[in-house]
């Protein structure tokens, strides 16, 4: 749409902070780390925007993680995420305070909120980014995201509209160090909210039944791909992961073959991980998978095909059959442990 705003009036970087019972989402803290860097490049204030019930302590925590100020909307009706109320409150503040950048975690909540908010604010929003930067010459916010099913990367800008919005995939940005000595300002919003004014009612909200592994928290991951062969190999790989005190990860193929549950899928349509150790078993190295693990600190790849793409990004490579190599590693590990 045509823009009718004076973009020079817009200053500051905002991060939407998602919380559950006062606990900030990891992705929100990751964004505070990145937001700090962006705000410093722009020479502006970093603001965390927190909504919830009884979240005053959480607000202080956000300052320790890098925010200069925290806008707090504290109300019993904000305890659970609600698209309408969250959009109303954030958009009203954004219209009044005019931030130039607004970033949101690409979690289920963030992906529900950010597009609605962006349309309300007449702003563009770049979804599921894996990189954020500032073009220092033009002051423009530059977002990078996978496109075309993850086969290419696209760099996207939003020159004429403000705020410049992006959602960012969890696990892509590093978690910042907590610094208890940091100080900042807390801005409490005065709110008059009415349940009856909400069109959407939450009739029930329960924790899902899924066992809910979060492989993003794992420091060691042993991942299985198409080249690993079959379900039996999966049991070996699980044993290796346990011996290494890690978790099993997988490519989309392995998930669709039914060997592994979806919550362990790494890559474009799964999760992004950056463990200290990633061992790829029978993984070819298609970009749809590697986009979710290439930031791992040490990558070891085991594959029969010496020309597999995965060897281009690995630190150590083993050309061999997973079904022979993995059992050998398991027995050697057991030997050394006894």
């Amino acid at each position: 749409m045509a823009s009718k705003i004076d973009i020079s009036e817009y200053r500051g970087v905002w991060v939407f902070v998602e919380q559950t019972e006062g606990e900030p989402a990891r992705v929100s803290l990751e964004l505070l780390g990145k937001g700090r860097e962006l705000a410093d490049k722009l020479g502006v204030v970093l603001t965390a925007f927190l909504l919830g019930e009884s979240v005053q302590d959480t607000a202080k925590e956000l300052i320790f993680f890098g925010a200069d100020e925290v806008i707090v909307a504290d109300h019993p009706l904000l305890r659970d995420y609600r698209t309408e109320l969250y959009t109303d409150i954030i958009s009203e503040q954004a219209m009044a305070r005019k931030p130039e950048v607004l970033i949101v975690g690409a979690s289920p909540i963030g992906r529900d909120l950010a597009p609605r908010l962006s349309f309300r604010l007449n702003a563009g929003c770049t979804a599921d980014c894996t990189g954020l930067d500032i073009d220092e010459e033009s002051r423009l916010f530059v977002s990078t995201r996978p496109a075309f099913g993850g086969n290419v990367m696209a760099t996207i800008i939003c020159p004429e509209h403000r705020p410049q919005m992006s959602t960012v995939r969890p696990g892509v940005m590093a978690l910042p160090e907590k610094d208890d000595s940091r100080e900042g300002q807390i801005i409490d919003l005065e709110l008059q909210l009415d349940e009856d004014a909400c069109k959407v009612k939450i009739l029930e909200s329960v924790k899902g039944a899924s066992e809910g592994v979060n492989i993003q928290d794992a420091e060691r991951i042993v991942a299985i791909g198409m080249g690993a062969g079959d379900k039996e190999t999966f049991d070996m790989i699980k044993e290796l992961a346990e011996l290494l005190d890690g978790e099993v990860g997988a490519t989309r193929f392995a998930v669709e073959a039914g060997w592994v549950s979806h919550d362990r899928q790494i890559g474009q349509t799964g999760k992004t991980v950056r463990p200290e150790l990633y061992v790829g078993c029978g993984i070819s190295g298609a970009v749809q998978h590697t986009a979710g693990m290439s930031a791992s600190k040490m990558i070891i790849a085991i594959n029969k095909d010496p020309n597999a793409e995965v060897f281009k990004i690995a630190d150590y490579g083993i050309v061999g059959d997973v079904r022979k190599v993995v059992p050998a590693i398991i027995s050697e590990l057991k030997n050394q442990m006894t």
Partner: protein
Amino acid sequence: MNIIVCIKQVPDVTEVSWDPETGSLIRKGIPSIINPNDKNAIEAALQLREMNGGEVTVISMGPSQVEEALREALGMGVDRAIQLTAKQFAGSDTWATAYTLGLAMKKIGQYDLIICGKEAIDGMTAQVGPQLAEYLGLPQLAYAMHIEVVDSKVRVKQKLGDLDRLLEAPMPALITVEREAYQPRVAPMDTILEAYGKEIPVWKPDDLNGEVENFGLTGSPTKLRKVYTPKLIKGKIEMLEGGPEDVARKFIGKLKEKYIL
């Protein structure tokens, strides 16, 4: 009860291949399909029609070949299809897409539900649904695992990350459907044949009551700066060689060297 389903025709990105010489993407010859997740949205609409009566309309914006996708949807059993095709619509980002679809909804006028797939496999933004809901001022019920109509209100089982929620909203409302919900039916032969006889109106900017500068590339707030093939080459690989026992020992040696073990 009248339901509108928004669908997108996408390249089958799982069929993508690379030019081994240049390392660039080969786009030619990739088949176009209905975005798989949008078929779940069609299925949800058909099941709701079976239970509550009414009509299902499917709508899609895209180049002229989008007609194929609409015919396929008619084949699954939807009642009518509307196509949005014009050069002015080309290059739309999610904002401009939501705007254009929203104008079409206003022209259709009477509807109780708009149903979309959660996201498309090519862009994977999941943004058009919520943006369309905002444009039309509708309640937004994303990530639906199940939909039912109770006392003229719509109830949605929502999978919000690790929360399972039950939401209720007045109609009209907009729903996005999860990939795992509403497995699409196989189109029966008689409706496929019928689908080829149906008229599909093509709407252009003149048919919509919108601002010309809001369509397509010009109307899109986000601009593509560049596209590139990700380079992931570390180029410092060390191969561990030998038989399984040798590589196993070397593997463990490396973990010890880096203090992982």
